[in-house]
């Protein structure tokens, strides 16, 4: 009788031990999975998928805007030529200047594309125009600015070649935008690098 009670105690101990062990294992697994979970703002190698998605999305946008059929200027080039040199911000309904909120960005294919694709998906975005002067010094100005990008931001760029014929009045264009004529001796004007930064809000 005494032997039987002792065996039952051992069996209970083993059962308890097994339960405890499985609890510990489950707890560790849960802890490990939680520790490496992905969030849109996780800044680590773990959010590379999201960065790759943004990169592809941005490239597609700029590629579409760079396309031109049968010799018409691409929309991206037209946007640069139409730029008034001002900085615009998304105010919830339109891109407007900070100093004068009623002054909205007009006839910009890039802004329209960003509004349809980036704004609706909650993707923050900045657009910069950068160029080099005759001496090779780089300069950059903001076209659309919605704040400092996060650590997860991706930058997509597209270069656009401008000639004097595209620009028209060279002096007026340089005064307006700050983009200089890189070579006064030829009809080549400059190369503008359109940089777009995208990041999750």
């Amino acid at each position: 009788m005494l032997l039987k009670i002792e065996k039952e105690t051992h069996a209970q101990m083993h059962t308890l031990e097994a339960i405890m062990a499985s609890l510990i294992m489950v707890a560790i697994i849960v802890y490990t999975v939680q520790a490496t979970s992905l969030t849109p703002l996780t800044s680590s190698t773990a959010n590379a998928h999201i960065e790759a998605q943004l990169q592809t999305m941005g490239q597609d946008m700029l590629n579409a805007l760079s396309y031109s059929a049968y010799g018409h200027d691409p929309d991206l080039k037209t946007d640069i030529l139409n730029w008034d040199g001002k900085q615009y911000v998304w105010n919830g309904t339109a891109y407007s200047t900070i100093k004068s909120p009623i002054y909205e960005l007009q006839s910009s294919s890039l802004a329209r594309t960003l509004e349809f694709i980036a704004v609706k998906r909650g993707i923050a975005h900045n657009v910069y125009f950068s160029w080099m002067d005759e001496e090779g010094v780089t300069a950059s100005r903001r076209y659309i600015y919605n704040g400092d990008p996060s650590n997860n931001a991706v930058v997509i760029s597209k270069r656009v070649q401008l000639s004097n014929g595209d620009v028209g009045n060279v002096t007026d264009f340089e005064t307006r935008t700050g983009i200089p004529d890189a070579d006064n001796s030829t009809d080549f004007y400059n190369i503008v690098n359109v940089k777009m930064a995208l990041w999750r809000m």
Partner: protein
Amino acid sequence: MKKIDDSAQLLLIAGFAVGVGIVVITVMLSNVIYASNMASESSIDTSRYDIANAIQTTTEAYQDAYIYSNGTYGDYEDYIGSYSMKASQNYATAGFTFHLQNHKYSQPYFTGNGLAGGKGNWTLVSNVNTTEMFYITPNTSIMGNESNPLIIEAVSHSGSSLWLMRMYNTSGTINITVIVSSSTPSYRNVTAVTPMEINVTGNQINGNNVPSFNYPLSASQDYSINIYNGNTTAGMCTISGNLTPDQPFTLMRHYVANPTLRMSSGQMSINRTVPILLPGGIA
């Protein structure tokens, strides 16, 4: 006492087993996450976009150089030189070296890319609604014979022929045949001179009036203009009009340049020869 020792040993071994299991699971999970990130990061390589972008800007630069040089080769070369230097500086900041060579241009063939080895049977333009101007200037000394004539055909969406022009050189005589739909062919025989400018829409050859070519300036339906045996004949071509929906177009094929573009970075190096038609499509 001995039985208590056995239980303690069992608990100890069970503890070790649990510990080893946790380590194994953690390492496996870590490897899975690492491997998936490696795969996705490979798609972030953007060099292919840079190369495509360089080809596009180079094409535009050559076409602009030709347009603004007004036929002066020195101005054309200066433009390309300025573009090449600025592009090199721009790509240097992105970690690429950029180099352009062979700026010369030559007379194009009636092929897709303008080179002798290009595609001979191809579509010059699609969805044409109206044609305002159509000039063909074949080089009569580089022209196909009767068995390989240059054929230019306007074809409807349904595939039926609206208009066809066939031309070839027979011992110094240029034979031109025009067929409108299924009507009887009309013929012109012209002594070979170079340049020989055929104004298809204005019904003239070298400025002299000729019987109508009956080109469908405004057909009742949209059509494409196809070229066949383009690799047998060299020459220039200019066409303008309107596409559907109401989009003006102009295509000009005066010359073809075939520059080689070289880009290199720490990871890759690429040489790409890009046929560029001058002045190309202009607005």
